[in-house]
């Protein structure tokens, strides 16, 4: 039944009302927007407002997450997964024993042959750990010792929409809360004037992404991610209309608060008091968000590090830099979506520009976080919704080939936030087609991410339709092998 959660929220709300009555501070009640009411902001990971009692369940390793989601499914074969055997067997038919009748998408299911094709981009070993990285990722190659590669990610989804939805919400079909919404609900906010959960989409085309990927599902809508846009207002409706400056807005808000306060006293509705504080929060955001997105205080060296795109709003580079600034301001969950990885044809040409988009900025982000002492407490995740086939889709030439969707084994990487640096987890077969050892399912990744944030994934639940739902459904095993 729902009554406990609702009642609990009401009681929490009442407590804040009491606090505001005693003059401690006007409290924003919605968890997402929770002001640090006690104003004693010692910055420890547990110092958050809102969220559920009893959370975190144990001391967290990571305080926040930056998820660099690569929508469209990047090819592991051209980036991270070095398979000498495939080089050897170039152009030969993928052995039937490898595919073993597993399903393919209808884009290649009736293809007459399935020749394996190695990356045309050479791989080399990097760092002290000697991780293999292709030449498409020269900057990332320099920081491999910070990364933890999971080579055995797998999913059931074979198409983009269900695949992306699965990674972000733990289910293939619409309707479930996104991971960031779960965290906002469970852990509350760590700051007083920014959202808990921010999503950004870089301005490269590709398969669409959707509100549900940062949506609240069946959780209350206050937990939905706030989308930062690169054109117009970064946060919807943030700017005052033309002709209304901050002074005029302040006066407006004072008058509005006075009127609402009169009504609160007349009608006794606590929602009215809450609304006053939400308008105050809005006013603070009108200052804090532009301050956040205004990069003019960053030295030139920072732009050099993140690369030439970093001055152009809406690029992956600019969004990585923003992600760092959001992390600095204790936003709990930052998600950067980068579209355009879906390469059924012309992969060699297209992946070069695509890799160039992300390589330097993502490496810069990791280094930057590290230098600022934030990497230890920031979990960075990089990956798409599935991988790509080792066999060629369509025409195969030295410069032209494609790869279809491959959900059975693919590579993602993590960094910081309690994850072992400089390691590689899981083994695939010679073709990178099937998992040989240590599979990691999406549910396992989610369980592990929640674990790093101090949450027992089996105990972060929300009652809906008579069931206690979890991000990990009824699954999920913590991948202990990657924990530092």
């Amino acid at each position, binding site marked *: 039944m*729902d009554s*406990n959660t609702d009642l609990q929220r009401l009681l929490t709300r009442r407590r804040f009302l009491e606090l505001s009555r005693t003059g401690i501070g006007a409290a924003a009640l919605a968890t997402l927007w929770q002001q640090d009411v006690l104003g004693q902001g010692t910055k420890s990971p547990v110092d958050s407002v809102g969220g559920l009692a009893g959370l975190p369940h144990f001391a967290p390793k990571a305080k926040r997450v930056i998820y660099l989601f690569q929508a469209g499914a990047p090819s592991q074969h051209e980036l991270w997964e070095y398979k000498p055997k495939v080089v050897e067997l170039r152009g030969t038919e993928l052995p039937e024993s490898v595919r073993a009748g597993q399903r393919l998408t209808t884009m290649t299911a009736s293809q007459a042959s399935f020749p394996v094709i190695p990356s045309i981009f050479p791989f080399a070993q990097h760092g002290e750990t000697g991780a293999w990285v292709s030449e498409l990722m020269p900057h990332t190659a320099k920081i491999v010792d910070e990364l933890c590669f999971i080579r055995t990610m797998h999913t059931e989804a074979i198409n983009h929409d269900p695949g992306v939805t699965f990674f972000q919400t733990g289910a293939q079909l619409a309707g479930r809360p996104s991971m960031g919404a779960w965290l906002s609900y469970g852990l509350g906010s760590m700051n007083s004037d920014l959202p808990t959960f921010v999503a950004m989409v870089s301005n490269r085309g590709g398969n669409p992404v*959707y509100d549900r990927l940062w949506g609240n599902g069946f959780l209350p*809508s206050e937990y939905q991610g706030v989308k930062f846009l690169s054109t117009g207002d970064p946060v*919807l409706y943030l700017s005052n209309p033309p002709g209304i400056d901050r002074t005029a807005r302040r006066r407006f808000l004072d008058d509005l608060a006075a009127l609402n306060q*009169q009504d609160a006293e007349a*009608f006794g509705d606590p929602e009215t008091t*809450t609304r006053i504080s939400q308008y105050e929060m809005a006013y603070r955001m009108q200052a804090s968000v532009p301050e956040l997105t205004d990069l003019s205080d960053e030295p030139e060296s920072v732009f050099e590090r993140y690369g030439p795109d970093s001055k152009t709003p*809406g690029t992956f580079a600019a969004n990585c830099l923003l992600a760092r600034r959001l992390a600095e301001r204790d936003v709990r969950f930052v998600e950067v979506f980068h579209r355009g990885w879906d390469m059924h044809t012309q992969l060699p040409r297209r992946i070069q520009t695509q890799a160039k988009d992300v390589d330097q900025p993502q490496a810069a982000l990791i280094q930057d976080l590290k230098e600022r002492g934030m990497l230890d407490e920031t979990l960075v995740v990089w990956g798409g919704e599935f991988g790509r086939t080792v066999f060629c889709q369509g025409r195969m030439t030295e410069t032209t080939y494609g790869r279809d969707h491959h959900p059975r084994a693919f590579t993602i990487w993590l960094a910081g936030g309690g994850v072992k640096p400089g390691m590689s987890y899981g083994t695939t077969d010679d073709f990178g087609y099937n998992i040989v050892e240590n599979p990691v399912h999406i549910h396992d990744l989610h369980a592990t991410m929640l674990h790093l944030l101090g949450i027992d994934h089996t105990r972060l639940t929300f009652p809906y339709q008579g069931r206690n739902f979890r991000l990990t459904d009824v699954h999920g095993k913590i991948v202990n092998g990657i924990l530092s």
Partner: protein
Amino acid sequence: MNLRAGVIGVVLTVLGVGSAQYLSRHLQAASLPIQNPQESLDFNQHVRPMLAEACFACHGPADATRQADLRLDTSDFIDSVVVPGDAEGSRLFQRLTTDESIGRMPPVSSGRSLTAEQIDLVRRWIDTGAEWGSELASADGGGRPVAARSVDFAREVRPLLSENCFTCHGPDEGSRQRGLRLDVPEGPFADRGQFGGPVIVPGNADESLLIHRVSANDLAVRMPFRRGTVSAVEPGGEEDGLTASEVETLRLWIDQGAEWQSHWAFIPPERPELPGVVDGEWIRKPIDHFVLSRLEEEGRTPSAEADLMTLIRRSTLDLTGLPPTEELIAAALNDDSPDAYERHIDRLLESPGYGERMAGEWLDGARYADTSGYQTDAERTMWPYRDWVINAYNSNMPFDQFTVDQLAGDLLPDATVDQKIATAFNRNHSQNGEGGIIPEEFLVENVVDRVATTSTVWMGLTLGCARCHDHKFDPLTQKEFYEVFAYFNNVPERGKAFKYGNSPPYITAPTDDNYAELAQLDGEIDTAREVFANFEREATAGQAVWEESLQSAWRVDWVLRDQLLVHHPLNGDIAGVYTGEPIVVSPSVTAGLRANRPPPEVTLPVAVTMEGGLPSFVPGKVGEALSFDGQRFVNAGDIGNFTYNDPFSVAVWIYPTVDNGVIVSRALAGDEGERGWGVYLVDGKIQVNLAQRYMDDGLRVVTRDELPLNEWQHLTVTYDGKKMPGGFVVYLNAESVSLETETDGINNPIRTREPLRIGASGSAPDGSGATDSRPRFEGMIDDVRVYAKVLTQAEAAVVATAESLSDIARIAPASRTSGQSKKLRLAFLDQYASVDIQDAWRHLKGLERRRAELWDSFPTVMVMEEMDPPKETHRLIRGAYDVPGERVSPGVPAILPPVNEDEAPNRLTFARWLVQPDHPLTARVAVNRFWQMYFGTGLVKTAENFGTQGEYPSHPELLDWLATTFIDSEWDVKALQRAIVTSATYRQSSTIVPELLEQDPENRLLARGPRLRLPAPAIRDQALAVAGLLVAQVGGPPVKPYQPEGLWEQAASQDYLQSEGDNLYRRSLYTFWKRTLAPPAMLAFDSATRETCIVRLGRTNSPLQALNLMNDVTYVEASRMLAERMIAEGGETPEERIDFAYRLATAHRPRPEARAVLSDSFYSSVDRFQADRQAALDFLNVGEHPRNETLDIAELASYTMTASLILNLDRTITKD
């Protein structure tokens, strides 16, 4: 069934004991009540809840599990283990704080240890005197304070068993442990054979194994225990197990006889008597008896009636989603009759806004949207269904008919178009058109969605939970899920939907305006036919004379030119002949996603070249023909650039000498196979291909039979632009031949830059290894034509007639083929008849073409249809689409009344079953949602779940009274609304008294009127209405009002083409709803996303809402327009004008202190804008609606600011 038993206990559970329990469970820190450390504490109030949780399992009321003969739930222990005033000296405190190894309590192994704060609380309780204090909710003051209450199974015990036990001892056989189920009486009361006696011995809790197991100290024995694997319902860690008060509830219930009842919601409602009340004066309607009786039991009184203006505004917003107009208010205020309010309600129920408001609610459940969902989420046309819903409510369609039409209107005898439109309900789900998907997978998902949605909306059942296994809580088996599934699994639909537009099955659904237009045109056509018929005799005579004159002509011919794009006669010249008629090829098929880019204009004449050699003409079928050698081909230039929704035809004479070769194409062999369209000879058969990516994104048909080589034959291929393989017709020598489908599933528009080619298709550069290169034609080709329309069979026969007019004229009429006769006739009418006849003929043909185009322009709507024979349905193992189990037939869950076996097992029977009077759920679920709409919370709070995990009703008898009244009224929806909104319950003041808020924060007892933030659409609609901007047009295509730029572009690379004029100001119900990127302002105010069925919305309060109301163009413009109204209609002084606007927005005059703030605010704006007139102008320039330029800008800007203040008031966006 007696639902009233033990009603007194409800509030205890919900608010009293319950809250204490939750406090101690979840909010230890927050609940610590002590401000002053010196204050004396009360055991029952402060300490007991905590100890109940931690200690009562072993030291509580249960004798069987009691340890050390110590109980802490009665005051006796104070004498034995407590030294009042000396915590350190008290054994109780010592055991709470001692070292673990010496036996700290509670034992660590119990997982119930106390926190430091809790221990400190015990210390303070003892140190301040160890007062026993007041009894908790005690009636008898005895040692066991809650012992006297009578436990109600349905309300208290079943939910407890459901929540804690059913996962392993419930309906799901697959996960049932030890063969014990506790959801049916056969389980707990039966002898358990080798496992011992029954787990429940009625009347004797001590003898009941259930009690032993739930209160056992040993974690290995205690139930429910945490299992090694994580179950679906996972009580968390130390919170495992029942609380002491829950155990107590079970004990009491067993001791009181363990009376068992089926789950209340599965028992058909019976009409209850109106309960007696002490003070009946307050009562206005039957509903009030139930509410008042309950309030009296709780010792409370209802609130006073709200003032009339409040009631007018409340009811108008509730019933129409709009604020009351001046006229409505005046009509109500000027009505002196005692039933003035009732008459006001009747006016609302008769207004068109009523249907719009009700439809908005319904469409959330129906997951209605204007796009298909999933990846591309492109536009579809379902709004005729939305308008059907509006009309159904406005015409007060009975709810049973409303049900049957939506679920099975297509199966009704002589189903009307409206009844078919209604079935769009079950086609509103998302459907996937993503490239590469496996159609079978999404065929299943479509049906699963239908079952889940239908059962939620009509039955409040979470039947969808039984997809993969038996339901964990409700008596619904997985097999039963697939039996219901079978009703909805027989639709001739595609698993891979069209990416753009509607997918079959769909019907044309003309609006009233469409019908009117059509009728007018039909009238014109009738007249034109008549006019032409009058020329019949003259034409026949004229044709005879003409034919005779032709007989002596050397060679006269004629070509059917209607929508002929190009004609290559190939008589000594490869050039084409172009009619010069402007041919409209369909505009961008992705309309709504990308700005329309019209196809490039074709420059006539088109450059035509011979490639691969010099042209070689030989005697042909019609004059000369062009000879092809497998190398040469004609590049016929940029013409015929058809995409998948363009109708077209290709006609050609061929004389093939080998059995493979391209005849005509506009295609290229590419990386992903062929792209474009083409007509080919493949292994002696005619193949027609239309593809974006040949393997899974195209259409391909092939003739069944091979055609002979080395002879002339005429080929006409037509395509109707409907994206289905059945849309191809191939005529060989004017006869339609049978076709086989090779690929079916075209999803993307296929414009290609390749030219039209005769005898070849585009191939990739040499050595590229391109797949699917096509051999060029060998033989002869003659008389190639491309039409931008579907040639009829008769026209195909004419086109296939090679003989010239003069040749035909020389054949005796009786010996002519039908094609020959038609060719003569058409040529005569087209070119040789008298001008009057030609005109009459062309006029008629033009009108007929316009009619076809008009019909094609009408909206379509996806509907339900049945396949014959029906598709087989199987249980799907673990719900997986590709693992079928045994076959199942349509059927309904056994826990519900049986379906009529005499009727066909189809959706119609299912729909009628839902509304049979003894169905226990349909009426209850429906009335509960209406109640929720008015009061914010349903009588059953879990409006989406009436199963055992759902909430027990706050007023069970009222629910049943409403349900049975609804059925007995023949499902009269308006009567039901009237019954609710005219009740004294609804008419109460909504002012909140602090102590009531504390005790009943959600107003479940209904001791006050509803006070709720308006739903998202009403907030915007109200602002538009008070601004005078609202355009009150009902129905029609969706509109695209203001939306911040970049929203669609950044996430989906799609353009949002904002509407213009009136369409910026339509009700929010008509706002284009893109499922995956829904209107942001609606989402900010808690709208459903419409991705799935939602029947209960949240209500949050966030800064995004504040930003939206302050800064969205919508509200800035509305403020300006309200300001103009203030000046024009609001009186002379600022104060009068402020009053006017305030009244429009809230239906009240501002109180003096509010007026003071508003007027002060106004004058400060005046000062500012007079000093900065540019700012005023900038502010006033927001929004598309023109400004009244006769007004002073500083003054108008100041009023605009004040109007904005009023539109932002909490009171304005709240229904009070």
